[in-house]
C-alpha cells in the first residue's frame, strides 16, 4: 500500500512539474509547429516555406510580437492518411500555439478538421484547397497563399478579354483541378466567353495524346490547362509537339510553368499564365526580399518562400496586437483579419473567409523566367461559397 501511495505521489509530482514546465515555457516563448513536407516530391517546397518564415523572424530580431519563438517540426510526407496523427503530435505532444502547414491539399483538409476541433491557430502557407476556407472555414484558420479558384478566375478573365469565346479546359479529375477550372469558367463568363469542352483524365495519368486529338477536333479559341510537376512539363511539351500551340493559345495557372521551365524548354516560350507572384516585379519589398533570401540561403526564392514569409508576417500582426499574449485569441484573430500585409508579391489583406485578397499577375514565359506582364485582376477575393463565420 505504501509502495503504491509513493508511486502515486511521484506521478502526481511529475505531472505537477510538467504543468509548471509547460506554464513557464508558454510565458517565455511562443511555440510554432511546422507541419511541412521535408521528404518526397514536395520536400523543396517545404524547405522554401520554412526558410521564408525564418527569414521574416530573423528580420524581427528572432521575435514575433516581441516574444521569442520555439520551433517544432513534423514531416508530413505529403501523406493524407498520416495527417491527423502528425498534427496531433504538434498539438498534443508539443503543445504548440500555432501550426504552420502545409503544401498538399489532401493533408491540409485533415489538418483543418483537427485544428477546428481543437481550436488551434492554423496558417496554411500553400495548399489551395477551396473547402478549407469554404465550408470548413473557421476563425482560427488562415491562409497566406491562394485558393485554387483565384489564378483560374484571373486567367479566364484575361482569356475572354483577348477574344477567346469558346474555350476547352483540360485537367486531372481531382479537387484542385476542378476548383481551378471552376475559377476559370467564372472569369471567362465575366468577360464574355464560355467553356465548350471540359476534358479530364484520371490523376496522375500523363497520356495526353487522345485528348490533344480531341482538342484538335473541337478547334476552340483557346485551351486552359491545370497540371503540376511532371504532368505540367509533359502536357506543355506534348501540346507544342502536336502543333496546337501555333493556332490555339494555351493558358494556365502559374503552376503550369513554375519551377518547370528548364524541363519545358522551347515548348513553353511565350506562354501566358496567372499567379499571385512573378519574376521581375517592380516592388522595393520584393527586391529586398529576394536579395536577403539569396544571401541567407544561397538560392533564389520562389513563390513558396514568399508564402512562408507572409505566414510569419500575418502571425506577427496578430501577436503584436495582443503583445505576445496568445491566449487573447479573439483580439489576435481580429488583428490578422484587419492587417495589411506588405508582401514581396505586393500589398494584400484578408477576406472574410481568411484568404488573401490579392492582385493576380499575368506572366509571360521568357527564357527561364515567368516575367510579369501586368496585373490580370486587382485585389481578387475568392467568394468562398459555403463559408459561414
Amino acid at each position: 500500500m505504501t509502495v503504491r501511495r509513493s508511486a502515486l505521489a511521484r506521478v502526481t509530482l511529475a505531472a505537477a512539474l510538467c504543468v509548471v514546465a509547460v506554464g513557464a515555457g508558454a510565458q517565455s516563448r511562443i511555440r510554432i509547429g511546422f507541419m511541412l513536407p521535408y521528404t518526397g516530391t514536395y520536400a523543396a517546397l517545404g524547405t522554401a516555406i520554412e526558410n521564408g518564415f525564418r527569414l521574416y523572424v530573423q528580420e524581427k530580431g528572432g521575435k514575433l510580437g516581441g516574444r521569442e519563438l520555439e520551433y517544432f517540426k513534423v514531416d508530413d510526407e505529403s501523406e493524407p492518411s498520416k495527417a491527423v496523427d502528425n498534427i496531433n503530435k504538434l498539438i498534443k505532444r508539443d503543445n504548440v500555439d500555432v501550426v504552420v502547414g502545409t503544401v498538399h491539399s489532401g493533408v491540409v483538409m485533415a489538418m483543418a478538421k483537427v485544428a477546428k476541433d481543437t481550436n488551434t491557430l492554423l496558417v496554411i502557407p500553400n495548399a489551395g484547397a477551396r473547402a478549407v476556407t469554404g465550408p470548413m472555414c473557421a476563425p482560427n484558420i488562415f491562409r497566406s497563399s491562394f485558393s485554387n479558384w483565384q489564378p483560374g478566375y484571373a486567367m479566364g478573365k484575361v482569356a475572354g478579354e483577348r477574344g477567346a469565346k469558346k474555350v476547352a479546359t483540360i485537367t486531372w479529375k481531382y479537387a484542385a483541378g476542378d476548383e481551378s477550372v471552376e475559377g476559370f469558367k467564372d472569369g471567362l463568363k465575366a468577360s464574355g466567353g464560355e467553356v465548350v469542352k471540359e476534358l479530364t483524365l484520371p490523376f496522375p495519368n500523363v497520356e495526353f495524346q487522345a485528348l490533344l486529338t480531341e482538342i484538335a477536333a473541337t478547334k476552340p479559341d483557346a485551351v486552359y490547362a491545370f497540371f503540376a510537376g511532371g504532368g505540367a512539363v509533359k502536357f506543355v511539351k506534348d501540346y507544342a509537339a502536336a502543333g496546337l500551340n501555333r493556332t490555339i493559345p494555351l493558358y494556365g495557372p502559374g503552376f503550369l510553368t513554375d519551377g518547370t521551365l528548364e524541363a519545358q524548354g522551347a515548348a513553353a516560350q511565350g506562354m501566358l499564365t496567372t499567379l499571385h507572384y512573378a519574376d521581375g516585379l517592380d516592388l522595393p519589398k520584393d527586391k529586398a526580399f529576394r536579395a536577403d533570401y539569396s544571401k541567407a540561403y544561397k538560392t533564389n526564392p520562389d513563390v513558396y518562400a514568399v508564402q512562408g514569409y507572409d505566414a510569419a508576417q500575418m502571425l506577427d500582426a496578430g501577436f503584436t496586437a495582443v503583445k505576445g499574449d496568445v491566449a487573447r485569441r479573439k483580439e489576435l484573430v481580429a488583428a490578422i483579419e484587419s492587417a495589411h500585409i506588405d508582401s514581396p508579391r505586393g500589398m494584400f489583406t484578408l477576406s472574410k473567409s481568411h484568404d488573401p485578397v490579392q492582385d493576380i499577375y499575368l506572366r509571360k514565359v521568357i527564357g527561364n523566367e515567368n516575367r510579369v506582364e501586368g496585373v490580370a485582376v486587382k485585389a481578387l477575393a475568392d467568394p468562398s461559397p459555403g463559408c459561414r463565420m
Partner: protein
Amino acid sequence: MDFAIFLVQCLNAVQYGLLLFLVASGLTLIFGILGVINLAHGSFYMIGAYLAYALAPWVAAHLGGGFFTALAIGLMLSVAFGYLLEWGFVSYLYERDHLQQVLMTYGLILVFEELRSILVGDDVHGVAPPAWLAGSVPLGHVMTYPVYRLFMSGVCVAVALGLYAIIARTRLGMAIRAGATNREMAQSLGVDIRLLYRIVFAAGVTLAVFAGMIAAPVSSVYPGMGNQVLIISFVVVVIGGIGSIRGALLASLLVGFADTFGKVFIPQTAGILVYVLMAAILLWRPEGLFRTG
C-alpha cells in the same frame, strides 16, 4: 467524331500500346520464366529515363555523340546492372514464395527512389530528342504528329519482332522455353539454368531501361514515373498471359485502345476502364490470352 480524327485516335492507341509493350515484355519475361514478381520493374524504367537525362551532357562532352550514343552506353550499363542485381539479390528468390519476392523487390523500389533523390534531386527534367527526329508531320490542318513518336513505335515493333525471333527461332530461346517449362529437366539435359536465368533477368532489366530511355524525350523525367508504368504493365502481363511475349503485345494494344477511346468517349470511367477490361478477360480466360510454361 469524323473519320480522320478516328484514324488519328487509332494511331494514338497503337503508339501508346507499343510503348506499353516495351516495358511489359521485360516484366512478362521475368515473371513467366523466372517466376519472380518483380515490383522494381517500374524503377528500371525510371532509371532508364534518368540515364537518358544524365548521360546526354556527359556523352556530348566526352564522346561527341548524341542520343544514340547515350542509348548504347545506357544499354551496356543496364545489362551489367541487371546481371549484378540477379547475382546479388534476385537469385535468392527463385525458391522463395511470392510474398518474399514482393518484399525484396518493393525494398528495391524504395532504395532506387531514394538514390535517385540523392543523386539527381526531385526536379522535373526534359530530354531532347535527336535533332533529325525533332520535327512533326502534319495530320489534317490543325494537328501535327511528332516524328519522334512514330520513330518510337517503329522501334517497339522492331523489338517485338526481335524478341519473337530469339525466343521462337534460336537455341537460346529454346533453352529459355525449356527452363520455363521445367527447370530441373532442362538442367539435367545440360542447360546451365543459373546462367540462363541471369541472362533472362538482365534482358528484362535492359528492356525496361531501354523503354525508359526511348520514352524519355516524350514522357519527360520526374520522380515516381516508374510506379505508374509498373501498374499498367502488370495489367498487360496478366491480360496477355504470364510469360507470353505474343500475349503481351496483343494485351498492350488492347490496353492502348481501351485507354485512348475510354478517355474520349467515357471520360468519367477512364480511370477504371483498363481494369474492367482486365477483369472481363480474366473471367473469360483465367490464365490470360496466351499462357506459356
